């Protein structure tokens, strides 16, 4: 029982970065833009958050730094895919490589490739209460962001524009909706959320920065968006599922029964679960109508 409670608590923690990134990617993809820059944005968000927090001593300023980086990466993706109409796969991979390269460049410049400092990280709320003992960002993610995102996409004018642009940009344009502005807005929101997701890793969970800190979590988020079929609550469920398997493998790794199973295979488990889940549930998925399609007035 105590193991199960610990498991749920751990799952909520490790679901938090994924939750932010997945919801960020979700709103972006709803406008028809696949943002493969997400892995880089998460990485740069994690690093920027750490860097600012390390030099100011405030995790909140770190979070702000991450948001700024996230907005900039959204702007870059917008410039490439919306304004220039570049192939989205290529633009995204390029953005990821650029942001990871830049982060590691600055990291090396600042810390010489050696040890990085520990930073003052976010504290836990409700200390020593099982499951409820979580970071504020976890509470905000699950209790504020997810419902708000659900409502925004479903009931707000912005959500309507997002969906219209993602399904049929020509019709949206004819109805007086600016395709460009909507897509930029979604990329900016998505970029900021993704970067916050990355910053959760450094500012809350780890309290420091290591190379390869995101370890493909951005790619996982993209898988989760497909798994959730671009809906908010299934995306939340997907993030919890991945994080649950992740927490489970950590538990297994320290249990005596699985001592002989190599550690790395357990770490690989959540990725394989995502692929398997996609294989089972990914059939006949209906993508947003304008997925991957740049829009220009004829």
């Amino acid at each position: 029982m105590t193991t199960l409670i610990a498991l749920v608590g751990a799952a909520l923690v490790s679901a938090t970065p994924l939750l932010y990134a997945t919801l960020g990617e979700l709103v972006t993809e709803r406008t028809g833009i696949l943002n493969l820059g997400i892995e880089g944005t998460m990485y740069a968000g994690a690093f920027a958050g750490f860097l600012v927090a390390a030099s100011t001593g405030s995790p909140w300023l770190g979070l702000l730094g991450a948001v700024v980086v996230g907005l900039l990466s959204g702007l870059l993706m917008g410039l490439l895919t919306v304004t220039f109409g570049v192939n989205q796969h290529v633009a995204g991979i390029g953005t990821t490589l650029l942001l990871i390269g830049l982060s590691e460049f600055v990291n090396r410049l600042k810390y010489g490739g050696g040890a990085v400092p520990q930073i003052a990280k976010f504290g836990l709320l409700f200390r020593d209460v099982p499951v409820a003992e979580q970071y504020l960002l976890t509470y905000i993610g699950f209790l504020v962001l997810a419902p708000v995102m659900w409502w925004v996409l479903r009931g707000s004018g912005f959500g309507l524009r997002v969906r219209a642009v993602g399904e049929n940009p020509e019709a949206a344009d004819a109805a007086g909706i600016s395709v460009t502005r909507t897509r930029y807005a979604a990329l900016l929101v998505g970029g900021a959320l993704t970067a916050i997701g990355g910053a959760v890793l450094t500012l809350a969970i780890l309290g420091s920065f290591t190379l390869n800190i995101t370890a493909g979590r951005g790619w996982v988020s993209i898988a989760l968006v497909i798994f959730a079929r671009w809906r908010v609550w299934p995306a939340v469920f997907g993030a919890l599922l991945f994080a649950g398997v992740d927490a489970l493998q950590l538990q297994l790794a320290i249990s005596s029964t699985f001592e002989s199973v190599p550690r790395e295979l357990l770490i690989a488990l959540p990725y394989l679960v995502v692929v398997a889940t996609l294989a089972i549930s990914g059939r006949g998925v209906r993508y947003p109508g304008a997925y991957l399609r740049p829009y220009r007035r004829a």
Partner: protein
Amino acid sequence: MIRFALRGRQPRWLLPVLAVLPIVLTYLLTAGPIRAAGANPAAAYERYVLQPLSSVDSVFEVLLTSTPLLFTGLAVAVAFRCGYWNIGADGQLLAGAVEATFFGLNVRGLPAGVAIPLVILAGAVAGVVWALVPALLRTRLGIDEVVTTLLLNPVALLLVQCLLNGPWRNPENQFPESAPIDPAYTFPRLLADHRLHLGFAIALVLAIVVGVIISRTPLGLRMRAVGRSPEAARFAGIRVERTMLGAALGSGAIAGIGGVSQVAGLQGQLTGGISDGFGYTGVVVATLATLSVTGVVFVSVLLADIIVGAESAVRVLQLPPQMGDVVTATLMLCVVAVLVLRRYKLVVRFPAALHRSRSRPGLGEDAA
């Protein structure tokens, strides 16, 4: 207000501009970070581009560095040409490397004439196996290959680490790297006094074969047709799924041989750093080459030039080596953005209000 308008036909001056503009943009954009690192951008670029080509020895070093990029660049180009977004070349390369190490450690006593073809074949098979699941999911069930190929990259890396920390840990020094492979599998060097090895020659031969297949055979035509428009290809009687599956698996095979080349040609053992993100760099190579095979060869050498230069810039200019990654990523993004100008021209228009006040008679002239 800036907007894009379709171009009628390409003017003559366009091509040279398209070639030069990304380079100028990349230089301008990266000059800031280079200065921030306390180095002179011009000196840095001299290091990145010219220095590695200044001696015969370092030219061979560039060719050696270009070898894995040739493999992954080709692999990605083959898949992308057919509209299959294989971003898993990294995992497929690692699978090939693991397979090569398996043979090198366990199947001993073969003559080199048998061992080398065998290990190349085995690596290709391993790459195919690693590419198989995403390819089948895509062609049979229509499940997006971008995500599945991407997710298998960390899995492949974890598999390598698992082997190196476990059964293949070096028995002599307990480092997480494999023991040296059986010398029978080691690729011969192409030159007496340099590390450049058979892998580079194999990559070039593969490039020629792939180039001929893509541009001169019915198979290549089918692949290109599927890549351009699957619907049209289907209408023309092409078996789209089958063609795509072939391209996806061929792509995996090429990347897998790249892994063999790293183990049997360069390192002689398996290490955790056997792939330096080569699969992702392969996407950059293929894109910069606009998916042309000849282009892949040139771009691989160019990027290798920058990588070798970036390594030497660490020593000379104290510029972190990651600047090389930043430069190549920036170059790629500038190239794809600028290439849009092939089909579209930029039209600068003043906002309506401004326009009206400008054209109002008298006002402007009075002010002047």
